[in-house]
């Protein structure tokens, strides 16, 4: 998607110059081929550093929560899936829609450098997108990898090319089609296991947790001013998982708190330094919500009500949840 960077810079320049926006939120070129950093741009001469490539997986919506008020009106570049998060934040009054100028940008599916490393590709100096393949120049020679094999987990089941809210769009029509896996397939696989197997799976996964809180801090709906786990008065605060129970507790409660609000943006799994498949917990909640209470996608619009804030007199009984397993 580097092909649209020119248009993005033009748009940013135009709106900054016109005074329509006070700042631009995008990605800034990094030191390597794969490390653009979310950044604010305040003047047109900084825009040369604006980047948009296959490694702009980070969801910028979250930054609008904190900076929304301070920075005046902000132009934000959002990929289609990021717009769900912004919608959700708008619906929760965490971001003032009036304060944001959304430029939807097309997306070919974002890449995960860790997947390249896991393939044994080390010493990455440069990454070229060459059609269906990536050409990776390394300290140890040229390597290639099919682009699809390096997609971020979240991009393997893309929510589509549609921006759910935007003031303008760039390159939206040019987005590349990417293979779309059933996002609930992994959840269904786990559901098929015995409770013992599932327990073993999650123990193994969650025991890696170092409570760095990256999942929470990156999550666009985990936007509490003070998380209960940081609040000494909550009675459940903890800075580290001092027992297996606490490893479970943090993630169970986090999944529950974002249930009905999580748009499945996949940031939690993307940022986890310990490669814990955290998205599976959220997807399980989404799958349940859909099978228990009907179709629902958080962030689809800014004025829908979370399934946990509504009810129907005919809802299923709590003990019936497993009868619905696999019904999708």
């Amino acid at each position, binding site marked *: 998607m580097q092909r649209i960077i020119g248009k993005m810079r033009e748009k940013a320049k135009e709106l900054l110059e016109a005074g329509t926006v006070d700042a631009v939120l995008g990605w800034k070129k990094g030191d*390597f081929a794969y490390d653009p*950093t979310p950044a604010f741009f305040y003047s047109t001469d900084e825009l040369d550093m604006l980047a948009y490539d296959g490694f702009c997986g980070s969801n910028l919506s979250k930054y609008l929560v904190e900076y929304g008020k301070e920075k005046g009106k902000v132009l934000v570049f959002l990929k289609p899936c990021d717009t769900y998060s912004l919608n959700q934040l708008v619906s929760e009054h965490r971001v003032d829609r009036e304060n944001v100028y959304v430029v939807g940008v097309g997306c070919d599916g974002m890449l995960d450098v860790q997947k390249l490393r896991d393939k044994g590709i080390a*010493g990455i100096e440069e990454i070229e997108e060459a059609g269906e393949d990536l050409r990776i120049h390394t*300290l140890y020679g040229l390597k290639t990898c099919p682009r699809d094999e390096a997609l971020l987990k979240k991009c393997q089941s893309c929510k589509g090319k549609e921006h759910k809210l935007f003031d303008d769009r760039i390159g939206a029509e040019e987005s590349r089609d990417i293979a779309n896996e059933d996002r609930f397939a992994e959840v269904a696989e786990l559901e098929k296991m015995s409770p013992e197997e599932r327990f073993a799976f999650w123990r193994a996964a969650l025991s*890696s947790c170092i*409570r760095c809180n*990256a999942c*929470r801090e990156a999550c666009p709906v985990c936007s509490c001013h003070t998380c209960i786990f940081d609040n000494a008065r909550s009675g459940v605060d903890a800075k*580290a998982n001092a027992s297996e129970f606490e490893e479970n507790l943090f993630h169970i409660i986090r999944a529950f708190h974002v249930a009905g609000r999580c748009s499945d943006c996949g940031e939690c799994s993307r940022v986890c330094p310990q490669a814990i498949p955290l998205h599976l917990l959220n997807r399980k909640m989404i799958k349940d919500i859909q099978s228990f209470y009907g179709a629902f996608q958080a962030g689809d619009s800014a004025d829908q009500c979370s399934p946990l804030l509504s009810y129907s007199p005919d809802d299923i009984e709590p003990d019936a949840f497993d009868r619905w397993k696999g019904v999708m």
Partner: protein
Amino acid sequence: MLKLPVSQMEELFASIASEQSLYLPLETNGLIAFSRWEEGKQARFDQLHCAGSVKDFFFPQTENLALFKTSGKEIHIEENRDPEEAFVVFGVRACDAGSLSILDRVFYDEPADTFYQTRRRQGLIITVACNAPEETCFCHTFGLDAADPGGDVAVWLLEDMLYWDSRTEKGHALTERLRGLFEEAGDQGEETVRKGKADIGKIIDRLPLRDLSLERFAGDGMMEKFDAPQWESLQEACLGCGTCTFVCPTCHCYDIRDFDTGHGIRRFRCWDSCMFSDFTLMAHGNPRPSRLARFRQRFMHKLAYYPENHEGLYACVGCGRCITKCPVSMNITKVIKTLGVDQHA
């Protein structure tokens, strides 16, 4: 220098493990991390860094300090340290090995931290030279040599042969115990290692971060750096998570917490991160109430305060974990570059 065919490493591991717990890079849950070796487990030296650093062995994420037992209105204080064990960590890289001298200065400083001290006494570090440095490596910036990694024993894995060079008393003792497994490396072996070191050096010269310079950080001007306007834009991307802190081999801040077990209070310490909003939170509030202040704290500590207190030693070893793990790709090298270029841009 001794040597052993790589094919016989399994025997080496078994011999070490017969008397000491042996930890080395193993793949578990899709991560390569230092884990307890058991027979049949495949050591993974192909990936440079383990997910956690060697710090975890000496300064674990959580550690019991004491137990206050209540019975009725009585309270008894019991010590509940984790049991001591003699252990060996195999496969430590130069950077991680270097981090221990940074931690030592903190924890050995009077009054010495006996928890750390005990573990350091019990632990033995076997390093492995980095045949294939990563683009994220910048240990050379801090005077560390990936080709000659130090530790109690230094190991090179070259051409199907393991070269073993013990460097400390502890290392010599272990070598003595295992002597029967090894052959003398001889001149040819010395030559192979020399050549291996040179090859590594060539790669290091090509690393993208080879020119990373701390020149501007040496000496005075701490306040100037503190007040640098660039902090503002640097910290904007930071999410305030603790990933960099927790994967960092030199970060050593901790919090002391009490857990009510229902029968008493378990007092333990756990890692803290200066990036957390409740870091050093006190009754009056937080002395660093903004993300900028917290972000700055981490880097000022590593690049200014720590060196100020420790004869110019920086509290970073250039392992590059923060570069690969930061969710938003903000890291110490970007800070060094930004602040090192022009303080008043």
